[in-house]
């Protein structure tokens, strides 16, 4: 490591290093970033959810969208796997079905970046339990 010689050096280094902990920064304030949850149950994985998740992570990072991509369990829409839930800041979550990488690209381009809905939305027939608590 060369020494930080100027104040500019420090700023450059900081901006470059920020990406290393973005995942933690975003998780600190999940409600202020785009939240993508990929259903990764057995049926989801066999339908290709892992590729889709990798795609979301790489693509959102490339396009510098502040986001959290997490995996979740089965959402119950087994007929439409892989399913992906997208929650934009301050909005109700929307679930997309039959998501492959092409669809994922469309979701990012249209919905996440331009707030235009795309085909393949699964009508929401459930409500999120506010505190996702479970009795042990």
């Amino acid at each position, binding site marked *: *490591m060369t*020494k*930080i*010689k*100027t*104040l500019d*050096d*420090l*700023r450059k*280094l*900081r901006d470059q*290093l*920020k990406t*290393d*902990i973005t*995942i*933690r920064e*975003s*998780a*600190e304030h*999940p409600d202020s970033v785009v939240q993508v949850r990929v259903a*990764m*149950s057995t049926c989801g994985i066999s339908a290709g959810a892992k590729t889709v*998740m*990798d795609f979301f*992570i*790489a693509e959102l*990072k490339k396009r510098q969208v502040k986001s*959290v*991509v*997490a*995996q*979740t*369990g089965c959402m119950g829409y087994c007929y439409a796997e892989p399913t992906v839930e997208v929650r934009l800041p301050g909005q109700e979550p929307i679930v997309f079905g039959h998501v492959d990488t092409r669809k994922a690209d469309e979701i990012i381009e249209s919905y996440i970046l331009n707030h235009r809905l795309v085909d393949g939305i699964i009508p929401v027939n459930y409500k999120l339990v506010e*505190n*996702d*608590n*479970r*009795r*042990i």
Partner: protein
Amino acid sequence: MAEIKYDILVCGGTGCRASESHRLVENLRKELILHNLDNEVKVVATGCFGFCEKGPIVKIIPDNTFYTQVSPWDANEIVEEHIIKGRKVERLLYVDPKSQLGIDDSKQMDFYKKQLRIALRNCGFINPENIEEAIARDAYAALSKVLEYMTPEEVIDEIKRSGLRGRGGGGFPTGLKWEIARKNESNTKFVVCNADEGDPGAFMDRSILEGDPHAVLEAMAICGYCIGASKGLVYIRAEYPLAIQRLKVAIAQAREYGLIGENIMESGFSFDVELRYGAGAFVCGEETALIHSMEGLRGEPSVKPPFPAESGYKGFPTNVNNVETFANIPPVLMNGAEWFSAIGTEKSKGTKVFALAGKINNVGLIEVPMGTTLREVIFEIGGGIKGGKKFKAVQTGGPSGGCLTEKHLDIPIDFDNLLAAGSMMGSGGMIVMDENDCMVSMAKFFLDFTVEESCGKCAPCRIGNKRLYEILNRITAGKSSLAELDALTNLCLVIKDTSLCGLGQTSPNPILSTMKNFAEEYYEHVEEHKCRAGSCKSLLRYQIIADECVGCTACSRACPVNAIVGERKQLHAINQTICIKCGACMEKCKFNAIVLN
């Protein structure tokens, strides 16, 4: 290289390491390599999360899953279940003490909801041994801002306007302290960081140094720039090996990156930091005693003036600030005085870190805005009293402070309110007591501490505290008198008035405040030889109920001192003069014939 999908944060603070969190880190890394996931998942050993009650703590990012009491052998399950299959390991989830529900998102925990973490901003978030993570979180950004855009006077003015007060106990305005040190002219000056945390039960300074050492180094450099010092010294007790190690790593990395040392970032300003070790004496938290100890002399306080700002380390102007105070400096300068002074109460700005200990569900480290009430701290963040027992009192300010009771629960905590209520902020230790704690014994515990820790330089403290302790000893043994209670109060006041330093001036506080709030307990001990909490052993009497005893001899065989006499199948009796109140007889008796009075 694949993108990082998960960060697994594992607490690497002293508390969690004692429960082998470092082995957990190793095992997690091994498991990830085994499953070919080591380039998708990063394991980070961080500083303290504050939730020490249930360590070791593991937090999984980005879903904020909070696992508690994780052992090194849980690594496999976490990787296979959570990381690979996306299923949370339910048995490791934090269980809310009130609802008995498992909570799988740390954002939903009462413990964190009310907290505002400024001094602890990076604790439990970054790897303290990696300067790059600190830089990514804006470490040294305040220093660069100061060196580029601000004059020392402007910095001092900013800190004065922020209303930041010393977090070590006294609450002296930090900006003013720096200004005085700046005004004393000298070619050589020193910045000292007081990391001699002596208050029993308080460990915020240790946790900050272990979790975010760069915050302190940066603030010391800023202070050096303001007062005109090029040398910083951290006075840290040798009892904190992990904090020392992390500080050494941090200093080495900061030097390597050119963030401390000669001509920092080509600004022309040079500043370097060295460590000085203390042997762990309470009195060395007092700044003059601390300075003498650093000079290699006995750790004894001296008369002020001269204040360290005029004549401190080796006779040069010295500015001493506590760790937590320093940790607040960079955010104040990054976000501005107005941001900081909008938090807190009228005369106490910002936040305060408290160490919760004693009979409370969530033992740990918390940071809340000044003005938060005791009730919120103890019953919401702290999760209430252990075992559903009744709250009795909370000791704030450690051996120098006093106790607060039920009626104080709703006062907003700040420097002045605590003083008005007969206690003090101190360094932020909070020891919670329930109905089974005897207040006289509590006062005795702290006096025992001050007697041990008195440096012996001045008579009131050296002799007076010893006498106080002896009187308390007689009270708890049921051998005191009402006249002695008056003598106790008198002696307390004399010691307060005549001691040289803060240690002696505050050591009678635990007695005075318990006598004020729990006078009836003192009278009961003296007049009725009774301890309502049942904790003063000498006042306890084990007795055999004649109607219940069948003469089985089990108790007399269990008694280690042969205090129980009686023939087989006949009534037994306990000889009170021999009895050591160990309770072995009561445990052994199958007929509930032995009772405690």
